[in-house]
């Protein structure tokens, strides 16, 4: 399989607290080479395009931060090792209430 054939593109919806990294874009696309593609691969690809963004969502131990929520095709997914369907649409959400 060629490198191009191994590439998968995923759409990622970016919440307002993280749009300073994406030049204000609410939605971006990332390209993942790994097969099968995992959520961690998509977040790593996002960090290549927008350096620093991953650490604001995922801590140094590899865990999704408590007030970040990630949806894959509408379902909550907090496991970075989770496999991504080929049509996965990833939605990042800042989930915090209070003052």
């Amino acid at each position: 399989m060629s490198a191009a054939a191994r590439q998968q593109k995923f759409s990622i919806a970016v919440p307002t607290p993280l749009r300073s990294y994406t030049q204000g874009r609410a939605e971006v696309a990332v390209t993942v080479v790994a097969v099968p593609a995992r959520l961690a691969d998509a977040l790593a690809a996002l960090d290549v395009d927008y350096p620093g963004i991953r650490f604001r969502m995922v801590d140094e131990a590899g865990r999704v931060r408590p007030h970040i929520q990630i949806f894959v095709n509408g379902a909550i997914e907090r496991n970075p090792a989770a496999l991504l369907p080929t049509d996965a649409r990833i939605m990042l959400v800042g989930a915090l209430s209070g003052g």
Partner: protein
Amino acid sequence: MPQPRTAPRRVRLLIATRKGLWTLAGDASRRTWKLAGPHFLGHIVHHARLDPRDGKTLLAAARTGHIGPTIFRSVDGGKHWKEAARPPAFAADSGRVVDHTFWLTPGHPSQPGVWYAGTSPQGLFRSEDGGVTWDGVAGFNAHPQRKAWCGGDQDGTPDGAKLHSVLVDPRDAAHLYISISSGGTFESTDGGANWAPLNQGVRADFQPDPDLVFGHDPHCVRFAGGNPDRLYQQNHCGLFRLDRPATRWQDIGGGMRKSVGYVGFPMVTHPHDADTAWILPMDGTSVWPRVSPGGRPAVFRTRNAGMTWQRLSTGMPKAQAWWTVKRQAMTADNHPTVGVYFGTTQGQIWGSRDEGQSWKRLAEHLPHVYAVEVA
């Protein structure tokens, strides 16, 4: 009393708050002040410092409620900011996660670009490129005793355990002090490769053994102005002074009025006079309200290295003012007649242009103030 060699600059205060960073610039007389900001509106900014070595690099330690901690950096005095490429973070296999960077200290004048950061939970980090990238100081973060020194979650402050008061000896870049809440004060003489507790004489009333080697709760530790052999400490359990090479702290809280007590968070030292320091006491009785005792705020100043303390409250409210002032939220400038400044959790900034004799409110309606520093 020795005076500063160069004419002091106009004072600009960096005000770090729970909702962003503001600046407050004074005129030459320090009578008129202009507020500017916010930067990073909505970010929790725990500390912001100017690099005194170049006079233009600023670092700000920030996070938000949603997203993780970072360091913002400006090389033009705050006109433009860029995020650190690699903010402080523990080793991936350490099992520890930086919640926020709490304290920033510029390094020694002989090491331009070196900065230190203290984090919550207690970690020490160092940058050698002016804050762009950060690495853990393994001598502390991976020290075999580190876990014993730092204790468990119950040993931290309500906002998380902190590493703070990172002090670099102006005569020796390898001579460092750090303090941890809780854990105590620690010293390194080899640039952070090894650390030893330095807590003899400091009370720890909350521990079964009052004469511990570590496990204390220093709130703020500062060098005396012009004499780095002298340290002043505002502790959870009192006020202390250490004159090196001695290793036993002296209790200097005995001169405080019993009705006020000796509990507080900040410790501010005079830039030119090693015998002068200021504190801002808070109520440490019963359930620890941590507000101005009796609702009557006052700064207290010693002119004799802590033997006696004088109440200074001219200009402040006389009653029903329940202020809390955090450990980084009080500072002094470098003028011949020193200005002293502090910020409250109610968002007021107060200043004195006569070494604390009289006070004036310089700004109000800001968010909860975490830190005030002269830039």
